[in-house]
């Protein structure tokens, strides 16, 4: 037997799933957070029950890839599976629409009335036992975020039964109206002050002002927290504590030889320069832990607050027209923002878009022009030396590339983009524990995914240099790399390693002493030219080999064109 969780989007299925199973699934306050099937186990006193969490659905007819995933899974139900229908108590009417459809599947079922606390606060009173009486299946109040009621829910799973409730499909909403008349009492209420203020973020003028403020503050906070952590904790640690250890290790290894070279790398004037030494224990650890991790933490902290507060759907409404220009609708901002963290979850989250055309555009745009936070952190480190102007040119160029490629794809791909149709959930104050857990999960995920690849990248870079491969390719590629883009031929090393990890690739540019112009061109080209291996495999899984090759071809072509043009333009302007 399995317990299968089904419900409308954004009714708190994932939060409840985490509570029931002790699992760790990302929970946010916007419809479409969950795009995959997740499995876990409930351990009750008597048995272990497998629990399956799905993307949310509005009806049994799927309208996007995420809903398709759920519909397919529902089609595969076994006779002894139990449906746990999660409903949002504050929106009982609409949620019952799906409940009645599910009842017609004639499976053992029970209903979790989630957001019970919020319903009480907003003046919605539901008589759960009466609803239970009418539908003939257990209906239990729960609060997924705090865990209230989940114990009772787990205890009553075995009481799930097949509902005998019958109705005429055409009279579904009348039927629901009658049920509501019997089980729900609404206290008359006007919009609260909070709601009125919240609506300002949806109105044309005030909404734009708020969006600029929120995004400006977010990026400011990310930079401030990231840089602050690096300056006060990570760099001092590496310089004062780690360096002496490494110097001792180097002396122990005899101050030279291949092992010393591999582990510690180059030592300049008796000091370790973590940007240039390129040993496994020096640059290999410094890049993920001291240069990137602080920014990853800062980014996910800010993103998680935006996600849990419920601001993202509002941003989606405001950005809808801009996103239509690139062939997406407003919800496309979600994969774009996730892509600033890492392109892998961004590619997965493209499943919230309705058509394959949109998913292709969405994935192409994120991989091509949305650098991940690991890469951004390294770019800030490298190009920041040339001043804020260099950084501004890099990110402005990437935005222009994003827009132009989007407009071109929108113009030439067959079909058109569907329109936005989305719930705008209420603002909620982020629940501190869930927020901390989410940031923690994402940090662990980053470290697990990134550290092996960074170390592998540093190792490979050393290997390729020492056997002369980079020098060889550099000479072969010189007409393009040096001739068109104006970069030294050694930068080919970065382009090669960029397939493994783009942060290491940017790091490999540090010892080359690039000029203002070269730094800008190199950073932009590294962002655009090719997806990293993790993104590459995700796109392969999501889109298939043909589209993966198309996206890659677009990237390589864009890198050549943009690299060349940028080189010329910068030369013309700055000399």
């Amino acid at each position, binding site marked *: 037997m399995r317990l299968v969780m089904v419900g409308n989007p954004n009714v708190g299925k994932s939060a409840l799933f985490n509570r029931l199973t002790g699992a760790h699934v990302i929970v946010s306050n916007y419809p479409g957070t969950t795009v995959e099937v997740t499995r876990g186990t409930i351990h009750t006193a008597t048995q272990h029950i497998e629990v399956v969490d799905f993307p949310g659905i*509005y*009806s049994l*007819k799927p*309208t996007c890839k995420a809903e398709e995933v759920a519909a397919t899974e529902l089609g595969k139900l076994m006779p002894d599976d139990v449906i746990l229908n999660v409903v949002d108590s*504050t*929106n009982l*009417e*609409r949620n019952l*629409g*799906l409940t009645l459809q599910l009842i017609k599947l004639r499976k053992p079922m029970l209903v979790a009335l989630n957001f019970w606390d919020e319903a009480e606060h*907003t003046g*919605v009173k539901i008589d759960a036992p009466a609803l239970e009486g009418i539908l003939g299946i257990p209906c239990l109040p729960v609060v997924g975020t705090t865990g209230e009621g989940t114990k009772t829910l787990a205890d009553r799973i075995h009481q799930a039964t097949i509902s005998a409730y019958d109705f005429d499909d055409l009279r579904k*909403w009348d039927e629901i109206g009658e049920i509501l008349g019997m089980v729900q009492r609404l206290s*008359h209420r006007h919009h609260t002050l909070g709601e009125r203020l919240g*609506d300002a973020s*949806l*109105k*044309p003028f005030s*909404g734009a002002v708020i969006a600029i403020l929120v995004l400006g503050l977010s990026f400011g906070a990310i930079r401030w927290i990231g840089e602050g952590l690096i300056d006060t904790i990570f760099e001092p640690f590496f310089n004062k504590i780690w360096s002496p250890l490494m110097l001792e290790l180097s002396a122990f290894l005899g101050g030279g030889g291949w092992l010393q070279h591999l582990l510690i790398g180059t030592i300049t004037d008796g000091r370790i320069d973590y940007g240039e030494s390129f040993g496994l224990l020096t640059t290999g650890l410094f890049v993920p832990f001291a240069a990137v991790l602080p920014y990853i933490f800062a980014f996910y902290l800010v993103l998680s607050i935006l996600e849990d507060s419920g601001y993202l*759907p509002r941003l*989606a*409404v*405001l950005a*809808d*027209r801009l996103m239509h220009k690139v062939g997406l*609708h*407003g919800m496309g901002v979600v994969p774009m923002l996730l892509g600033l963290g890492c392109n892998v979850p961004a590619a997965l989250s493209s499943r919230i878009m309705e058509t394959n055309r949109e998913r292709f555009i969405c994935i192409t745009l994120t991989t091509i022009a949305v650098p991940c936070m690991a890469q951004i952190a390294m770019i800030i480190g490298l190009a920041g030396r040339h001043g804020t102007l260099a950084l501004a040119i890099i990110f402005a160029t990437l935005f222009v590339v994003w827009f132009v490629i989007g407009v071109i794809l929108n113009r030439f791909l067959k079909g058109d983009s*569907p*329109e*936005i*149709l*989305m*719930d*705008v*959930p*209420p603002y909620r104050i982020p629940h501190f524990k869930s927020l901390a857990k989410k940031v923690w999960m994402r940090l662990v995920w980053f470290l697990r995914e990134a550290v092996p690849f960074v170390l592998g990248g540093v190792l490979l870079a050393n290997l390729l240099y020492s056997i002369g491969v980079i020098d060889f390719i550099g000479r072969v590629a010189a007409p393009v790399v040096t001739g068109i883009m104006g970069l030294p031929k050694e930068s080919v090393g970065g382009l090669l390693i960029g397939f493994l990890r783009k942060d290491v690739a940017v790091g490999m540019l540090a010892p080359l002493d690039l000029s203002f112009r070269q730094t800008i061109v190199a950073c932009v080209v590294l962002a655009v030219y090719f997806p990293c291996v993790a993104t590459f495999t995700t796109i392969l899984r999501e889109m298939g080999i043909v589209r993966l090759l198309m996206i890659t071809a677009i990237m390589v072509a864009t890198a050549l064109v943009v690299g060349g043009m940028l080189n010329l333009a910068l030369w013309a302007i700055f000399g």
Partner: protein
Amino acid sequence: MAKHTDLVNLGTGKKAVVTSIHGGIGVTGRLDSMGIRPGILLEKISGQPFRGPVVVQVGNNRIALGFGMACKVQVKTDHGEDTI
């Protein structure tokens, strides 16, 4: 007097009852499953300029619909009652 219009032309902050949806089964079905169907009372929260999306309140839900979809939702004001 009841005024017949669509969601795009309904004034922000105004309440109205949905009279019909001028769309195929796909659009009608999706709107229906999100709670927008004939007979439903709603309030327009905002409308973005230049053919941008419209946000309405239906029951306790806020729903954003694209411009084209909002054009298809026909409504009439003067619904006799004033609560949602």
